[in-house]
């Protein structure tokens, strides 16, 4: 079996800082991580490989520094990593990104065998669109299985897969034919810790690096800024709340503290006091 896992290097949103003056996201110095949803995909793929045999190829599109994310994926146990990097890809929206990734997956298929399952995270934590996975599926004409919480069974003989999909009001149990594209939810399979041998192998590994031409992408009008109909018109940070929290001193008797609290609330919101008084009068 051949599993291709699409990953993205994203800024660690837990440590992201908004520039206090310009209100833009400060990327410099913010650590990058592998998009957390992608790690659940990767772990699912690694488990399937360990169980059934085969190979896991990780693929990312990004700047040359995205190599770090791929090396990390190799540390976890992926067999091969492909970095799609070219200045023609700069400024890609989800349409252009899924076009380029789909082309690269075709190329991966030519080189190492057609993938049986292509994995992606449900969405990235920086773009939050959840569009790239489905975009790839459409272009490669793969069955599209989104919001998957678990891959329960893969039957290599019958070429089928059974999965659980989280849906409103419950869990859907789905089956599909292979090949297909799966986008994974969080919490499904915690990523493993790579072994020492794996970590050393990853540190030494050659990362396959492809330009647009290497990946067989000839239609550059579909790439990068030119291939991206989405335009970011404006970026702004939500205005911080002007009001500061008011502190109330704790009294010896809790009742007195409660009285103070209510008094402070009414002071801040006279309308609330009026409403409540009206209500009380009606009782």
């Amino acid at each position: 079996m051949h599993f291709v896992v699409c990953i993205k290097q994203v800024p660690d949103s837990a440590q992201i800082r908004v520039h206090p003056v310009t209100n833009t996201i400060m990327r410099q110095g913010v650590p990058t991580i592998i998009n957390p949803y992608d790690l659940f995909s990767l772990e699912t793929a690694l488990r399937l490989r360990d169980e059934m045999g085969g190979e896991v190829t990780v693929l990312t599109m990004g700047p040359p520094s995205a190599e770090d994310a791929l090396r990390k994926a190799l540390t976890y146990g992926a067999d091969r990593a492909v970095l799609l990097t070219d200045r023609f890809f700069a400024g890609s929206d989800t349409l252009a990104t899924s076009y380029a990734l789909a082309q690269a997956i075709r190329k991966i298929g030519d080189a190492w065998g057609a993938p049986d399952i292509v994995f992606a995270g449900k969405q990235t934590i920086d773009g939050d669109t959840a569009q790239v996975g489905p975009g790839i599926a459409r272009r490669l004409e793969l069955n599209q299985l989104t919001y998957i919480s678990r891959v329960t069974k893969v039957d290599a003989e019958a070429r089928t897969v059974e999965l659980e999909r989280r849906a409103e009001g419950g869990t859907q149990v789905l089956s599909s034919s292979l090949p297909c594209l799966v986008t994974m939810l969080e919490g499904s399979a915690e990523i493993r810790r790579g072994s020492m041998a794996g970590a050393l192998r990853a540190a030494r590994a050659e990362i396959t690096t492809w330009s647009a031409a290497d990946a067989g992408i000839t239609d550059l009008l579909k790439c990068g800024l030119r291939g991206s109909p989405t335009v970011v018109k404006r970026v702004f940070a939500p205005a911080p709340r002007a009001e500061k929290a008011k502190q109330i001193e704790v009294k010896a008797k809790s009742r007195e503290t409660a009285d103070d609290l209510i008094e402070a609330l009414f002071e801040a919101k006279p309308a609330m006091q009026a409403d409540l008084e009206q209500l009380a009068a009606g009782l």
Partner: protein
Amino acid sequence: MVEKFDCIVVGAGMSGNAAAYTLAKKGLSVLQLERGEYSGSKNVQGAIMYADMLETIIPDFREDAPLERHLIEQRFWMMSENAHTGVHYRSDSFNEERPNRYTIIRSQFDKWFSRKVKEAGAIVLTETTALELIFDAYGACVGVRTDREGGLVHADVVVLAEGVNGLLGSRAGLREPPKPETVALAVKEMHFLPQETIEARFNVKGDEGVVIEAAGAVSAGMTGMGFVYTNKECLSVGMGCLVSDYARSGETPYGLLEKFKAHPSIKPLLEGSEVKEYSAHLIPEGGYKAVPQLCGDGWVVVGDAAQLNNAVHREGSNLAMTSGRIAAEAIFQVRSRKEKMTKANLKRYPDALEASFVMKDLRKHKDMPALLHTNSRNFFLTYPELVAKAMENFVRVDGTPKKEKESATFAAFRKTRGLGGLVNDAFKLARAWR
């Protein structure tokens, strides 16, 4: 099969990176282990970086290292409760082509340094903790065991650059764990301000920067000091005191930092800033007398783990870098003579370190930590108050005859500390400085 390297470097801070870089550049196979997510992720230093020592290792570092500001002004402040008496040194000669001191942000600087280490050919494994040193039947260190599955790795020599706590070395009995009276606990905040505000407040332009180091009442009679460093778009503001002093006084590190920030001389510098980071770390301050055994069969220890820090001159990372480099050079020499990595052969490292500024400087001030520690109330509380009073007497014009003012100043010194005490302090201080 267990892999074997020429060297394993434990830790990717200043000393570890300097050692790994130097070793890899000389063609040795190097494995560097770092428990953090990336080199610098566990670091807290202020930080000031001294160019000279880095230049010896990476001559063209200025081309791409992430540097914040080069320092053109140093302010030493002696703080009383509500005043400071300062010595400032500002010179345009610091605006040289290759400046001598820079402020840096360690998480960014260390990442850069680590990239250089990788480019030099070392294998750097992050998120990998060395749990224990492995010794052979004769007591020679032959490798480490990490926290990864199949985590054993062998090497001819292990460079312990594990930082101030030095768990690996102390667990193996190579040295004592640091004592409360030989380590300071420093807390630091990053205060963000617009670049123009920093430049206006500190009277600098472009990449120029200022350092303020302040001792006295802000440490509540304990051995320690506060600092303000200017970065490009933020100020590093911190405070550090000896751990044993905190224990004795019951003061808290963050309590002292709050007090420092509220001091009338510091507060206006921080006004309107936004705090984005808060961190704390230990600093080795035991000086020369606290330096442990530096090498043994199959191992050397460098940087903070070896307590190589000059508290008097507030230098640490340059001692760390230099010790890492010298240890690496010693290892290279042993190897090129095809000798074994025994204690006797590795002694080239402590010998070369003794001959360098590192040990010379530490030896010069070997009595200073003990003196400041036993006498901390006088040096950090009494004298700053007295000096502030003397300055006030000198500066304030209120019709009191000058002679009376001078007598009052002298009387205050004598009354508070006694003539014998004054002479004694001056004598001891002079001797410790010599």
